[in-house]
């Protein structure tokens, strides 16, 4: 299994509070991704990173920011959480992002509930 650790695994918080989710990898992969999974939508890309300090938006990036100060850590921040951000969040990694055919490997997810 790919060495991906997400923390926390579960979190309950209130609307308007800031929330940060962490993804830590031990594979030294260049690419890291944040997805959210919601019923009827599968997994949707929030943000991704193609190197330290290099990030870009995915299809559902509004209300989220990310940071990557080290190869192994990719943080997802909800500056002011809303109930629509209640979801299961998955981190994924891949050695390369473009030009090659290779799968992404996923962590076990963080279940976030915003009341």
């Amino acid at each position, binding site marked *: 299994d790919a060495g*991906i650790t997400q923390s926390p695994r579960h979190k309950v918080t209130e609307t308007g509070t800031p929330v940060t989710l962490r993804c830590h990898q031990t594979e030294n992969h260049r*690419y890291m*991704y944040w*997805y959210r999974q919601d019923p*009827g*939508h*599968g*997994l*949707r*890309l929030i943000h*991704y990173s193609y190197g330290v300090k290099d990030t870009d938006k*995915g299809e559902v990036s509004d209300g989220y920011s990310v940071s990557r100060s080290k190869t192994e850590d990719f943080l997802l921040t909800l500056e002011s959480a809303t109930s629509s951000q209640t979801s299961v969040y*998955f981190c*994924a990694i891949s050695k390369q*992002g*473009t*030009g*090659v*055919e290779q*799968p*992404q*490997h*996923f*962590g*076990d*997810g963080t279940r976030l509930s915003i009341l």
Partner: protein
Amino acid sequence: DQQVKQNSPSLSVQEGRISILNCDYTNSMFDYFLWYKKYPAEGPTFLISISSIKDKNEDGRFTVFLNKSAKHLSLHIVPSQPGDSAVYFCAASARDWGKLQFGAGTQVVVTP
């Protein structure tokens, strides 16, 4: 605008029989397709993939078929086993794009 569609939210199959999962896509730029399997409270696990230069890829009990003209792919599981009960996601990507688009998933239940 969902570019990858799994129109069957659920599938029930008897143990030992074939499971066939379907996936349609709309973006003709997609050239790499994957299937992931997901158990509850776990992350998706990569199962099998296929490049657009092929029309079939096989790995043990799992075979993926790609029909580019119809923009359709399918996953065959033969024979189905109880441990195959999970949600299966179809995903697609374009080589130069690098990002995955996922379908909504199909819940497979294998009954004894």
